[in-house]
């Protein structure tokens, strides 16, 4: 048997490692993005200036975008291949099956992931490409100082309840995905030790929940008039 012909990513474990590494990259991005968004609370100049800095450094923004694109494509294609494999592994379903250890978040990883994918498409169209039809405002690429007018676009959008609702649903899916994923990735990568497992699991869940709260703060603050 030639073990040389095969590589790590041909094994189911290797595929899971692709999920975990790409998931970790996306998780890192999500934390950075969330912190960036919170600058809305510092006023228009802060967040618009931040956006300007990013866009003024093409290496930074295009570097990040290409890494993210690779990560999301690897993550999504591997997710589909694993989902198929797992489905095929049990051709006849149980009539009665009880869950003892697993939870809703873990069992719906594929569906929360799919929700996130659809959301990413909407989110890019909405705030990156400025397709705001139906939101009743004019997307402004630049403010009076010539900086990207992120602040204006956010505030105008999230005053619209259905738009905020959509973001809330998407964040629900993301936090469920990370509730399982943020811990699961360490187990998959073998970064585990019985002495630290409990701590690792609870910290992963805490960070995932913090991300959720941080992201939701912006649209909800706008909707309820805290940020105008």
């Amino acid at each position, binding site marked *: *048997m*030639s*073990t*040389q012909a*095969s*590589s*790590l990513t041909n*094994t*189911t*474990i*290797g*595929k*899971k*490692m692709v999920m975990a590494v790409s998931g970790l990259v996306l998780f890192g991005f999500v934390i950075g993005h969330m912190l960036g968004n919170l600058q809305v609370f510092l006023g228009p100049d802060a967040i618009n200036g931040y956006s300007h800095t990013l866009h003024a450094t093409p290496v930074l923004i295009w570097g990040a975008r290409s890494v993210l694109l690779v990560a999301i494509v690897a993550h999504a294609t591997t997710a589909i291949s*694993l989902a198929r*494999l*797992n489905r*095929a*592994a*049990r*051709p*006849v*379903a*149980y*009539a*009665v*099956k*009880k*869950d*003892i*250890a*697993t939870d809703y978040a*873990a*069992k719906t*990883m594929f569906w929360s992931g799919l929700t996130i994918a659809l959301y990413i498409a909407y989110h890019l169209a909405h705030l990156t490409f400025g397709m705001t039809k139906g939101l009743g405002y004019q997307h402004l690429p630049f403010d009076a100082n010539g900086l990207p007018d992120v602040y204006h676009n956010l505030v105008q959008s999230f005053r619209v309840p259905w738009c905020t609702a959509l973001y809330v649903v998407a964040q629900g899916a993301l936090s469920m995905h990370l509730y*399982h994923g943020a*811990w*699961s990735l*360490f*187990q*998959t*990568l*073998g*970064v*585990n*030790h*019985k002495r630290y*497992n409990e701590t690792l699991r609870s910290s992963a869940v805490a960070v995932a929940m913090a991300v959720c709260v941080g992201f939701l703060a912006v649209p909800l603050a706008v909707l309820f008039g805290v940020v105008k």
Partner: protein
Amino acid sequence: MKFKLNVWRQENAKSAGRFEKYDIDGITSGHSFLEMLDVLNEKLVMQGKDPIAFDHDCREGICGSCSLVVNGRAHGPQEAATTCQLHMRKFRDGEEINVEPWRAGAFPVIRDLAVDRSSLDRIIQAGGYVSVRTGAVAEANAIPISKDVADRAMDAAACIGCGACVAACPNASAMLFTAAKVRHLNLLPQGQPERDMRTIKMVEQMDAEGFGACSNHLECEAACPKQISADFIGELNRDLATAMLRARGASGNASAGG
């Protein structure tokens, strides 16, 4: 005690199965689950019907032969026990009990509740051994092993290969079984020479048998009659990654051992 049983019946691997209902009476709380099925089978034979096929051997929780998903749980409702160790006092009098075989593509049904688990044997054959020279028995203290390592290896070695982990896993993954068998030997000094080859070959065999991938649901650990920890799965992942990296570095090494 009286029970209403809902039992999976299937001629062979090719035929479609179906549930069959049976009423059974005169069972005591001291009957084991398998003894209850024995009583039912005697009745079926007397009526000239086919008895229900199910696997069993030691009936004391050590051989790993017995199986059955009872009321949706591999080896039934009792924690850290095999079906042969499960007693009818764990059920309510008159309770309806659902009995199904281990369900996995890699465990084809032989008949009724008996499934073919030789896929697990083939994983062992791929690398679950240490090659030693025969001859006089080595002096027991010749290879010092710390208590910590010995205990961990012993925990992994507790696996009886029943396949409950596969049965309980939403993905029908054999990761807990494979992890226990790989780590048991990879932990010990005797397992070191063949460590990388063992890890790679056993994982490749596990995949070739058509088991699913691990999604870290941890259902396996909860169902395991020997309470084998899913920590071993993380350790297997680590062992595989390092084995593959080393195999790449020293081209040819991994396949040279066989």
